[in-house]
């Protein structure tokens, strides 16, 4: 086996040192009836690198990849161009094959990256501090609800109808067990968000209001009034950002008063990857830092007085605090955080603003063109790079038919909200810098034919 360096000679010599007659002697503690005599039946034996690569390549070819088709899917995962240098750098063995930086003397590379990442995320989201990453946006969102409960000592969270339904679903799963109460309704096909309804719903039991920005239908609205209303009632505002590129063009939630801002960082550096691994972003106001879940990297000095970085405030964490921890999270998304941070460094503020501007301009072009397809209505007044079309027919069916023609047309609301027939004709279309004028035209033409 190419990954196992021991030779049979080594094994014999080592058994002799140990004083065991055979490998089996080392497994004596396993009850005899559970000790398998041979290989597990029904599974193939080892294979050459070439054979495995061919098998996996054959599976890969059964997928239609985003780069092979006009592609308009978003709804929480976005196709952006990732510079080649990002992937080159994250493959450096010293990053890729390092462990969690618990030994800071020999992990300054990872630690400094995390410190830089935390700073970038905090600034992007408009907050004071950010942690070193969570699993993804949806789990970060639930962690924020739990954190709001700990801070406010209240158990009722109000979820905006514009929150990604899968994020809602994750929160509902957890709330069943923790006893949190979640107020939520599916969205309406309206150009306005439900902020006024949310404000009306806030009461003295409310731990937090959770609002997505831009929301699942692509709408963007000012959060200031919502934040004020929450704060007045002693509740927190949790903002969720699933498309961080947007924040190169629109105001940061933190700047509009959000207390906790979480997000999905996949857009920068990480890639689509069929949904994972992704990158949970988590930031908040300074005063709440000790209630934060997840790892934090902090600056300090070494014995010689040199600046250095360490994981810190770990008394919040499970490996120290056990059942009293702020979260059970251990392994997070370190390598994805690295990729995000490198991509952000390559962009810089200048590049991020250009990228965001290009996304928005192309989305406007696409919206204008697609709204001209007979029978199709553009729902949004406001949007960043994603908007909702209302088709004269079931959008889920249309998406499947367009896929058969080689066009990945967007995410149907029927896929996202299968139990809400009112939304069935909605189609969420995302446009990024990777979208060409030809792609837009191809979608428009195909939609015209599909709806004819």
């Amino acid at each position, binding site marked *: *086996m190419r*990954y196992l*360096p021991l030779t049979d000679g*080594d094994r014999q010599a080592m058994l002799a040192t140990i004083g065991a007659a055979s490998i089996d002697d*080392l*497994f004596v503690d*396993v009850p005899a009836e*559970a000790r*398998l005599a041979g290989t597990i039946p*029904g*599974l*193939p*034996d080892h294979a050459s*690198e070439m054979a495995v*690569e061919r*098998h*996996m390549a054959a599976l890969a*070819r*059964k*997928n239609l990849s985003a780069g092979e088709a006009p592609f308009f899917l978003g709804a929480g995962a976005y196709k952006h161009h990732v510079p080649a240098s990002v992937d080159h*750098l994250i493959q450096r*063995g010293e*990053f890729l094959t390092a*462990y969690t930086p618990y030994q800071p*003397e*020999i992990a*300054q590379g*990872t630690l400094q990256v995390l410190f830089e990442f935390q700073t970038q995320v905090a600034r992007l989201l408009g907050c004071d501090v950010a942690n*070193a990453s969570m*699993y993804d946006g*949806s789990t970060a969102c639930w962690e924020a609800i739990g954190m709001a409960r700990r801070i406010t000592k209240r158990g009722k969270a109000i979820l905006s109808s514009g929150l990604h339904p899968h994020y809602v679903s994750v929160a509902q799963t957890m709330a069943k067990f*923790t006893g949190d109460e979640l107020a939520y309704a599916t969205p309406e096909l309206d150009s306005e968000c439900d902020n006024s309804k949310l404000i009306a719903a806030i009461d003295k039991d409310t731990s937090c209001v959770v609002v997505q920005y831009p929301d699942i239908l692509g709408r963007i609205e000012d959060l200031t009034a919502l934040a004020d209303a929450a704060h007045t009632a002693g509740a927190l505002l949790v903002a969720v950002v699933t498309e961080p590129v947007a924040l*190169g063009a*629109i105001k940061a939630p933190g700047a509009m008063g959000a207390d906790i801002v979480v997000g999905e960082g996949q857009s920068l550096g990480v*890639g689509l*990857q*069929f949904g*994972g*691994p992704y990158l949970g972003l988590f930031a908040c106001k300074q005063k709440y830092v000790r209630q934060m879940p997840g790892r934090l990297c902090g600056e300090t*000095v*070494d*014995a010689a007085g*040199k600046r*250095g970085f360490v994981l810190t405030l770990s008394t919040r964490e499970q490996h*120290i605090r056990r*059942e*009293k921890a702020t979260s*059970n999270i*251990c*392994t997070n998304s*370190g390598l994805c955080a690295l990729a995000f941070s490198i991509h952000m460094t*390559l*962009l810089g503020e*200048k590049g991020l603003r*250009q990228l965001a501007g290009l996304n*928005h301009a*192309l989305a*406007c*072009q696409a919206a204008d063109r697609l709204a001209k397809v007979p029978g199709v209505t553009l729902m949004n007044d406001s949007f960043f790079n994603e908007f909702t079309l209302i088709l004269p027919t079931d959008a889920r069916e249309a998406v499947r038919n367009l*896929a058969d023609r080689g066009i990945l047309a967007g995410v149907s609301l029927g896929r996202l909200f299968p139990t809400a027939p009112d939304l069935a004709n909605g189609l969420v279309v995302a446009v990024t810098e990777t979208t060409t004028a030809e792609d837009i035209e191809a979608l428009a033409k195909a939609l015209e034919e599909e709806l004819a």
Partner: protein
Amino acid sequence: LEEKLIFEIGSTDTTGVDFADAPQAASRLGSLARTDGIGLPGLSEQETVRHYTRLSRQNYAIDLGLFPLGSCTMKHNPRLNEKVARMPGFADIHPLQPQSTVQGALGVINELAVWLITLTGMHGVAMTPKAGAHGELCGLLCIRAALEARGDARQVVLVPESAHGTNPATAAFCGYKVEDIPATPDGRVDLEALKARLGPDVAAVMITNPNTCGLFERDMKVISDAVHAAGAFVYCDGANFNAIVGRVRPGDLGVDAMHINLHKTFSTPHGGGGPGSGPVVLSEALSPFGPLPYTARMADGTIHLIEEDNVGEEMPQSFGRMSAFHGQMGMFTRALTYILSHGADGLRQVAEDAVLNANYVLRSLEDVLDAPFGASGPCMHEALFSDKGLAEGFTTLDIAKGLIDEGFHPMTMYFPLVVHGAMLVEPTETESKAALDQFILALRSLAERAKAGDEALKGAPYHAPRRRLDETLAARKPVLSWSEPDLADAAE
């Protein structure tokens, strides 16, 4: 070896990326256009490559040497796995694409699921959990859902003292009360104490097997039977599955749920702290309660996705979604690649060599380092030592930091908690005898120095990018993000 921060070398006017000009279009941003300075510095591509290349060189990594972190299973990460994960057919597909366009991806999930079920002898598997701790959560949610389905709202989870911190944290995170189970003097779960505590309020017992002392829980089947008899479930922390893969099926021992850290047993890279992946294999009793989305192969060979819209007919007892999408697909492709490379015979060899290497370390060092459970028999995949016998004032920490100067990563220290000054060494099966011999020599010499009271050891490391770091300062006065020096000064 000091590398400035990007905030100290970059500028908001510099970028390492070019874009096509944006077409003219009327903005739909309304009054929300961002006008403030964000404060994100940019670097040219060359500066970027240099910054991160230089930073990387301040890290230790498996690619540089042996990484004996007990319980973490720092084994070799094959490069084929990385290549496969980057095939556009895997890397560049969206989680919400129509099923007809992602049959290969669903096939990977399904094929890996079959392997995990077969290797563990279990009935089903939940693929979505995103790391080991997330898998624990999944397992406990299944257990809770199963109990509630029978109207049995038990509130207590029993956890051995030696458990990973994630175990009690997870139980608490989903609303359970956590109670400890003591250990026997030979480092295993105290069966009698456990039995005595079992009762109608106990929902589950969480056991790590092989346990965190590196020992196999000999009574596992008896424990399972007792737990089941008391109406509770057995959760097994599978962090140490590497020791038994291919030789022992947890399903044969009565386990109801066990997470598998793909980044431990199945070689996906740790990446400086993730991403991990923690699929949970489930017994027949728990399988109906697993999370969405779920995949299943149909009679016609197509792979079918169970989500909210068809869950009613297909998996009505599912506890719901625990993350937005399908789980750690990028880790699935790597793990499946690794599994197919080894096959059933190679995986069995993995367990054998992992255990052989650990016992070799144990027996080569027990004359100079106290091995608290050394007399009770062989260890599994990790060798546990304590600080007993070190000179006054010398600690496990000193030995750990001394290893850095010898060119190795420290072992796991002060864990498990049941042993004083624990040093937990897991060499893994991908280390050669030559590498082990070098490591043993280094650890022997450090043990001797710590017993002899060599003061120099207390200052170690000397030959690392940094000397010992002041963690107290970091926690007392947390600096968690960078700010302009003058602003920081002004704030003091």
